[in-house]
C-alpha cells in the first residue's frame, strides 16, 4: 500500500498476526463522521464486556463437554481393584459424584454449582477444587505475570532501540539476540538455566516459590511477593523475588524475542509515515515525536502480539513449572488429567479459559483506548 493512496482509516501498521484476538475494525467501517461519538469509549467497553460474559458461559459448556468426551472411566481411575469388583460400591461412588445422571442434567448441576462458586470435589486431593485452584492458580499467575511484564518492558524497549538505530551495530546485536530468544525451546532453556545457575554457579535459589525453611506469607492475593510485602515480611519477599526471577526470565525469553522483532518492524513502519515527518516539521521535541507520533500508533500491533504471546507463555509455564518444581496450575492440571480427576480438570479448563478471555478483553479494550477509530466503529 503506497503512502499516498492509503485510506486514512487504515487500522494501523502491521496488523497481521491477529489469530485468537479480535481484529480492530476493518477499514471502511470507520470514518462515520460525528455520530456515535457520544461516550464512545463507555459504549465500546460495555459491548466488549457483554460479549466476554457470553463467551464465559460458552467456556463452561466446552470444558464440560470436552471433559466428558475423554475416553476413560473415572471410576476405575479412582477406586481400588477390590472396590471395583463390587458393583454396589461402584454404583454408590457414581451416585456420590453425580455420574449416574444424564449429561445435560450434569451440566446444569455443574453450572448451578459454578454460580455458587462450587467447582466440585477433587477426587484426588479430596478437597474442594476451588481450594486447590486458589492455591495453585496464583502461583502460576505470579510466574506468568512477571514473565509478561519483563517481556513487555524489555521487548518493547529493545524493539524501539533496534528500529531507531536501524542497520547499526546495536540493531544487528538485538536482532540476532531476539532470533535466538525465539528459537530456543523453553523446556531445554529451563533445564540448562537450572543446571548452570543453580547447580554449578549457585547464584539462583533452587526450586519452589520460597526457601525451604520459610513459611508462606498470610494469603491475601496468593502472590507471595505481594502478600509478603503487604505483611512486611521482607525476608520472605526477598526470597520470593529470588525464586521468581530465574523461571520468569526463562519463560520470558521467547516473548522478549517475539516482542523485540514485532516492535522493531512496527516502529519502522510508523517512522515512514507522513505524520511523523509532519510532527518533525512542527518542531516538536524528540520525546513528543517518539511517544505520541511513533510509539502510540506502533502499539496497536504490539498489543496484538503481546496478547498472543501471553497465551503461548501460559502453555510454557507447564514445562517451566515442572523443571523448577513451581507448585502452579500446570502441575495440578497434569496430575488431575492423568488420574481422570474430572472436576479438577474442568476447574483448570475453566480457569485457563477465563484467563484467555480476560487477556482478549484487555487487548480489545486497549485497542479502543489507543486507537479512537476502533471505538467509533
Amino acid at each position, binding site marked *: 500500500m503506497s*503512502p*499516498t493512496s*492509503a*485510506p*486514512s*482509516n*487504515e487500522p*494501523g501498521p502491521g496488523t497481521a498476526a491477529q489469530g485468537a484476538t479480535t481484529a480492530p475494525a476493518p477499514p471502511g467501517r*470507520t*470514518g*462515520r*463522521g*460525528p455520530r456515535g*461519538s457520544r461516550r464512545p469509549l463507555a459504549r465500546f467497553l460495555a459491548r466488549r464486556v457483554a460479549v466476554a460474559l457470553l463467551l464465559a458461559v460458552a467456556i463452561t459448556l466446552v470444558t464440560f463437554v470436552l471433559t466428558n468426551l475423554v475416553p476413560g472411566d473415572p471410576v476405575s481411575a479412582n477406586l481400588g481393584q477390590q472396590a471395583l469388583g463390587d458393583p454396589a460400591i461402584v454404583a454408590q461412588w457414581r451416585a456420590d459424584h453425580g455420574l449416574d445422571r444424564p449429561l445435560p442434567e450434569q451440566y446444569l448441576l455443574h453450572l448451578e454449582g459454578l454460580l455458587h462458586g462450587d467447582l466440585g470435589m477433587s477426587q484426588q486431593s479430596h478437597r474442594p477444587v476451588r481450594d486447590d485452584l486458589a492455591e495453585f492458580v496464583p502461583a502460576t499467575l505470579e510466574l506468568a505475570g512477571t514473565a509478561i511484564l519483563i517481556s513487555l518492558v524489555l521487548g518493547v524497549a529493545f524493539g524501539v532501540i533496534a528500529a531507531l538505530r536501524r542497520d547499526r551495530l546495536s540493531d544487528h546485536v538485538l536482532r540476532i539476540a531476539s532470533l535466538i530468544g525465539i528459537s530456543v525451546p523453553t523446556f531445554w532453556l529451563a533445564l540448562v538455566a537450572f543446571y548452570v545457575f543453580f547447580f554449578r554457579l549457585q547464584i539462583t535459589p533452587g526450586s519452589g516459590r520460597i526457601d525451604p525453611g520459610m513459611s508462606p506469607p498470610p494469603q491475601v492475593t496468593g502472590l507471595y511477593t505481594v502478600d509478603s510485602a503487604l505483611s512486611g515480611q521482607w525476608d520472605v519477599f526477598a526470597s520470593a523475588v529470588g525464586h521468581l526471577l530465574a523461571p520468569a526470565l526463562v519463560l520470558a525469553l521467547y516473548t522478549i524475542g517475539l516482542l523485540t522483532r514485532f516492535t522493531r518492524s512496527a516502529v519502522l513502519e510508523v517512522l515512514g*509515515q*507522513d*505524520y511523523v*515527518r*509532519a*510532527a*518533525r*516539521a*512542527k*518542531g*516538536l*521535541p524528540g520525546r*513528543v515525536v517518539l511517544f*505520541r*507520533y511513533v510509539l*502510540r*500508533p506502533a502499539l496497536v500491533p504490539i498489543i496484538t502480539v503481546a496478547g498472543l504471546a501471553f497465551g503461548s507463555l501460559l502453555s510454557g509455564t507447564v514445562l517451566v513449572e515442572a523443571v523448577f518444581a513451581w507448585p502452579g496450575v500446570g502441575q495440578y492440571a497434569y496430575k488431575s488429567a492423568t488420574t481422570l480427576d474430572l472436576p479438577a480438570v474442568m476447574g483448570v479448563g475453566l480457569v485457563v479459559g477465563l484467563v484467555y478471555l480476560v487477556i482478549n478483553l484487555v487487548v480489545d479494550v486497549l485497542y479502543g483506548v*489507543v*486507537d*479512537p*477509530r476502533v471505538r*467509533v466503529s
Partner: protein
Amino acid sequence: MTLTISGLTVSIGGAEILRGVDLEVGAGRVHGLAGESGSGKTVTGLAVLGLLPHGSRTAGRIELEGRDLLAMPAKRLNAVRGAEIAMVFQDPATSLHPMVTVGVQLTEHMRHHLGVGRKEARDRAVGLLAKVRIPSPGTAVDRYPHQFSGGMRQRIAIAVALACEPKVLIADEPTTALDVTVQAGILRLLRGLCDDLGLAVLLVTHDLGVMSAVADEVSVMKDGLVVETGPRGQVLTEPRHAYTRVLLESLPGDGPKLPQEER
C-alpha cells in the same frame, strides 16, 4: 521575511539530487516551484526544514533573516521549525496523526514554541479552524481527522501549519491528493492567507494549472537545477528555456489560463 536559497546542493546516498539551486521567496508572495517528478522540488522544500533523510549531505546556504539554516545546530533549527517556517504536505489523509484529536494537533507545537496555556491554546485553535473555514470549529477541535473529508483535512493541516504564526510556509503539492472541485478552494485559501498575513509561500507543484492560478513568481526545475525563474506572466507565456516550453506544451488545451485581472 525573505527566504533565500543559494547554491543549494543535496546528495542522498551518493546520488546528487540538487546541483546548486537558487530561489528567493519574499513576504506576501507565492513562489511556485514546478518541474517533473524527480526534479528535486520536494527535496528543496524538505531541505529548508532540515527534514532530509539520514545520510544526506548538503552544501550552500538557506537564509532566513540573515541566519543560515543549514549551518544551524539541530536544537536551534528545531525551534525555527513550526514556529517560523511551517510545512503543508501532499496527502492530508496521512499527514495528520490518525489517533489524536484535531485540537491536540493544532495546539501541541503552539504550547511548545509559544508557551501558551491550555485554555488559550484551545481558543486559538478554534479561531484557526474558523480562519480556514471549518464549519462549527468549536466542536471540530475535539474530533479526529478521520471524521473529516479530504478537503477539510487539508484545511486542518493548513491551520496546523499556521498555528505558531510562521513567516514562511512550504506547501508540497497541497492540492494533488484532492478532488479538482476542492483544489480551487484550498488554493484560494492559501492565496488569501499569503496576502492577509504577509506569508512567504513556497508552493511546490507539478501542476502548471495550479501554478497559474496563484503564483506570483514561478521557477522551473529540471534534474536538480532551476532552469528558469521569473514573474508568472513571463514564465508561463513567454518561456525562455526549452524545457519550460516542453512542460507548457504538454498541457491539454491552450496552455495555462492566466487570470484576467493581474493582481
